[in-house]
């Protein structure tokens, strides 16, 4: 029997400010509807408003009906019966959202509605069945673990199990794959789609990444600045009739063919059997096994791998932030001129002191120069990254993530670097902002001859910018090839997995 979850004229506001305005839509059993929008577009509020879990400062108006029953008119107590039982949620960071002191079993029991203590055989059987359904094995052992003991992928699966525990009719998924690497993302998306179809659940999938839902969504809803601006079946996503915002999102996810650079030039940075070990024991797990690699002038090297694969350690060694335990990093060129290397980190907001205005923060790079020169250099770099100069008077909290990453790049440019290392610098941004930053980096390469090392767990990013691809797997460099060669002839199994994930999660351009 088809059930329907409908919302009509749903608005959320904070005082006078409207955050979500008159949203209308319906979700039916057995369909997966994607709600796509940039950060701050109001998409997350939709899920919280439906569940009645908005923070106290926000007010919601409008109708929400589940199978004819008005949810917006229900008391909190009545809603407790709906939440978890008929509608459940998926979250972006499972480890942050689960209680670190409770076992997975406890979470599942809670979700199933079991409020008593003591084990029961029926419940235990249900717990194990759920875990096995999401591919977590051996179920009994995992049930007894705590969230910290699970890997990222396992935690995400556990969260799905928790959401499915009470056999709900609808699931509201709030960016469940946005922080996962490409391989995990593909796995989780497939799993979600599979379970959704098996159980006939209606899923509302919130995301900023239109490419990720391309293969699993039935319908797509586009939201921008608190308003729903477009809706269509997934097949029609790439048509030219789409709203401007939709097209912007689609374009940000399409790959672009680029002529690869093949001219060889002098090596600027070289790693010779460089390794890093953080523990004192010689036989302990190394953060990075001996690795050799060289970076040439004007080259864009894409470095891909999962978290813990050693890629960040490698980046820090190249940047000179750490010293290799064995081997060496040669950062000189043309005889003995030191190569200037700068690094851009992942989280834009932690790269700048929240208390300082941005001009002061940036001046860290040039504070020894005479005042007139400082002002001149600042204007120069702001122009290079395409930001208005008055932005410098603001504080980080008053800027968007995309703007802050540009400022981080600008700050790096103040030191006139030759190599720029971007360590997951786009991972915290939405897809459109990501594209802007990547385009900026490529532009800087073109105008300044900068070499780039772009590190990411997202294959889409790697494919967009790289000339060459280096793959790290379990602290080892396992593959290093030019991009096209990598996409067609990768040898290592992990590389193949990455390329396969690319096909599943990144938009393939559709003719027309």
């Amino acid at each position: 029997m088809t059930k329907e979850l409908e919302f009509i004229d749903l608005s959320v506001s904070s005082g006078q400010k409207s955050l979500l305005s008159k949203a209308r839509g319906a979700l039916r059993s057995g369909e997966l509807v994607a709600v796509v929008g940039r950060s701050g577009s109001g998409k997350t509020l939709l899920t919280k408003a439906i569940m009645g879990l908005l923070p106290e400062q926000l007010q919601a108006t409008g109708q929400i009906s589940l199978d004819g029953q008005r949810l917006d008119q229900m008391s909190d107590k009545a809603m407790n019966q709906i939440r978890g039982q008929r509608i459940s949620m998926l979250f972006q960071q499972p480890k942050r959202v689960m209680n670190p002191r409770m076992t997975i079993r406890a979470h599942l029991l809670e979700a199933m509605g079991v409020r008593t203590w003591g084990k029961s055989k029926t419940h235990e059987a249900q717990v194990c069945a759920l875990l096995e359904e999401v591919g977590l094995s051996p179920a009994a052992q995992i049930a007894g673990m705590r969230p910290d003991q699970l890997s990222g992928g396992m935690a995400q699966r556990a969260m799905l199990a928790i959401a499915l525990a009470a056999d709900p009719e609808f699931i509201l998924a709030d960016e469940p794959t946005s922080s996962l690497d490409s391989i995990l993302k593909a796995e989780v998306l497939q799993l979600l789609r599979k379970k959704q179809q098996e159980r006939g659940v209606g899923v509302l999938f919130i995301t900023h990444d239109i490419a990720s839902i391309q293969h699993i969504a039935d319908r797509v809803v586009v939201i921008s600045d608190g308003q729903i601006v477009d809706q269509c079946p997934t097949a029609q996503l790439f048509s030219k009739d789409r709203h401007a915002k939709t097209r912007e999102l689609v374009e940000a996810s399409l790959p672009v063919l680029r002529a690869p650079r093949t001219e060889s030039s002098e090596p600027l940075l070289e790693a010779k059997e460089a390794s890093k070990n953080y523990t004192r024991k010689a036989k302990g797990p190394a953060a990075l096994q001996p690795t050799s690699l060289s970076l040439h002038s004007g080259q864009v090297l894409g470095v891909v791998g999962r978290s813990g694969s050693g890629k960040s350690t490698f980046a820090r060694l190249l940047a000179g932030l750490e010293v290799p335990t064995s081997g060496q990093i040669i950062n000189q060129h043309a005889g003995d001129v030191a190569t200037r290397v700068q690094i851009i980190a992942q989280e834009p907001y932690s790269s700048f002191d929240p208390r300082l205005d941005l001009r002061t923060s940036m001046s860290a790079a040039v504070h020894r120069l005479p005042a007139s020169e400082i002002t001149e250099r600042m204007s120069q770099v702001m122009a290079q990254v395409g930001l208005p100069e008055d932005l410098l008077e603001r504080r980080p909290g008053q800027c968007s993530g995309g703007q802050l990453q540009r400022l981080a790049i600008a700050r790096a440019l103040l030191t006139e670097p030759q190599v720029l290392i971007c360590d997951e610098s786009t991972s915290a941004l939405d897809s459109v902002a990501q594209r802007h930053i990547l385009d900026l980096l490529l532009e800087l390469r073109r105008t300044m001859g900068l070499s780039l090392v772009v590190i990411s767990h997202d294959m889409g990013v790697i494919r967009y910018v790289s000339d060459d691809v280096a793959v790290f797997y379990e602290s080892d460099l396992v593959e290093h090839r030019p991009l096209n060669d990598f996409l067609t002839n990768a040898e290592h199994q992990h590389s193949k997995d990455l390329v396969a994930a690319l096909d599943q999660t990144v938009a393939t351009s559709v003719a027309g």
Partner: protein
Amino acid sequence: MLRRVVGLGAAVLLSSFAVFLVPFVSPGDPVRSLLRARMDFGEADEATVQAYAEQFGLHDPMLVQFGRWLGRFFSGDMGLSYISGTPVADQVLPAIGVTLSLAGTALLVAMLISVVLGVLSATRAGQWPDRLITSVTHALIAIPEYALAPLLVLLFAVRWSLLPSAGYDSPASMVLPVFILALRPISFFTVAVRSGVRQALDSEHVLAARARGLSRTQALARHVVPHGLLPLWTMVGVWFAGLLGGSVIVEVIFAIPGMGRLIFDAITDSDIPVAQGGVVVVVTCAVLVTGIIDLIHKLSDPNVRIGVKHG
């Protein structure tokens, strides 16, 4: 963990050494002072004194004497009181028992009250219960107990004859001292609990728990409060240690035969062995209590026990 133990052990050693040095730095002949702590030699002349000094090794290097003194101390011989001539241990050990029970009760009461107040304050943040409780906690730490105590005694013991004015022999006699001793801890603990609970409330744990269908109260009890109480554990250890000697005022006012009063009396009477014994015992207890609470905290945190790295 081992470092902590070593650190605490060093604390005891260093403070014992400082205490041991007192006769050497006070005015007067150290030899005679040290001798008086071992025996009553009355008006003996210099030659006899020197003979005794030789016998007890009082001219040996300081560290050697310290070692001996420490050894004797922890096997029960803390010397003789200058005033009464009786063994110091006979006075110190009952006194520490009294103070431990006083401090322990006060802290327990403080913890219970502060959990209630803290949770109440955090869940009604910004509203009148919160503002009232916050004002009260700030006021409590400003109260001089040596003014409040006599006034309370005046009211409860003299005017209304409800409670005894002194002594530590009945439950009724514990009420006022425990109450006064608990005031300052209540303030600090309440603020800590409020802060912890607020942080937990804001976290996403609560959102997810409610999304699983838990009511506000259930989410509070299972997910918020346990997290919110965490800061309390670290504080209790430090406060217990502080209260062991810090109960001096209360003990003096209520004539309670505890450690604080013992040390105070000993110092005013220049009864050095008793003062030494008292201080070392207090320090040792303080260090032990801090260590034990630390241990309990580590053992009860399941994540630490399994040795999981938080990443």
